[in-house]
């Protein structure tokens, strides 16, 4: 697969995350892909990521939106910069001791994907978790 196909694949993946289209996510993420993104240790493989994303979208941030701000690739890698917004209007986030308070979250997430044969085999990524915690009121500081 060439760079253009890889970029198109990640474009579909980001759209699928936005649409909660888990069949497409399942098709693109290799089942045992190496997750080097935020909380990657706790979300090993495609099914764990889908479970986590489902919980975030349906329980924590039911109005979650994501917008792709940058998307480009080189050789077998593709980069995306995504802006995530939502309000904590659903359930509280137990693991972070956050009650449902309606606070707005607005953070960026940059990921490098490595693909082969149209599937994601590995990711490296950073999301501004600290800023999100501040926006949720779970940590001091922020804006």
């Amino acid at each position: 697969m060439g760079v253009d196909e890889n970029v198109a694949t990640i474009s579909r993946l980001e759209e699928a995350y936005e649409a909660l289209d888990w069949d497409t996510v399942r098709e693109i993420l290799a089942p045992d892909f190496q997750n080097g993104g935020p909380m990657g240790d706790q979300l090993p493989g495609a099914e764990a990521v889908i479970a986590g994303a489902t919980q975030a979208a349906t329980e924590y941030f039911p109005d979650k939106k994501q917008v792709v701000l940058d998307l480009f690739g080189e050789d077998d890698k593709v980069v995306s910069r995504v802006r995530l917004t939502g309000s904590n209007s659903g359930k509280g986030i137990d693991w972070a001791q956050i009650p449902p308070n309606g606070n707005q979250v607005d953070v960026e997430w940059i990921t490098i994907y490595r693909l082969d044969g149209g599937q994601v085999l590995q990711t490296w990524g950073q999301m501004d978790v600290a800023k999100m915690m501040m926006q949720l009121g779970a940590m001091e500081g922020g804006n």
Partner: protein
Amino acid sequence: MTPEEMRKGAEAFYDAMNRKDIDFIRENLADDFVEYQEMPGIPPTKEGVIKMFEGMFAAMPDARSEIIDTVVSGNKIAIRGRFSATQTGEFMGMPATNKPFSIEAMDIVEVTEDGKSKSHSGVMDAMGMMMQVGLIPSPE
């Protein structure tokens, strides 16, 4: 610029950060440079970013930045890097912690035709940094 020129440009900028070369940074940033990474109290402009680096160099004299991986397309380069430092002075309103930390960061830089930095976006593992210096508890 070719991908190799883009990568050489990123390496030169990282080298300048490591030798605290504010003149190089001033020369490298386009006059209408835009900073998309929000930083407390820092205007998203060339002058704002120069002030940020001056503050960082003073507050973290041992700061080291290294490039682990790059992805280049057209006039954009994504950089996965590692930032290691000890904050020994106040920085962006945060008091010194005097504890070393080492975290990964992702940067995307847009470059002008003559090789200057036009814009920067970035996300770093601020959570990891706060855990390593003991500002917040680490998970088991």
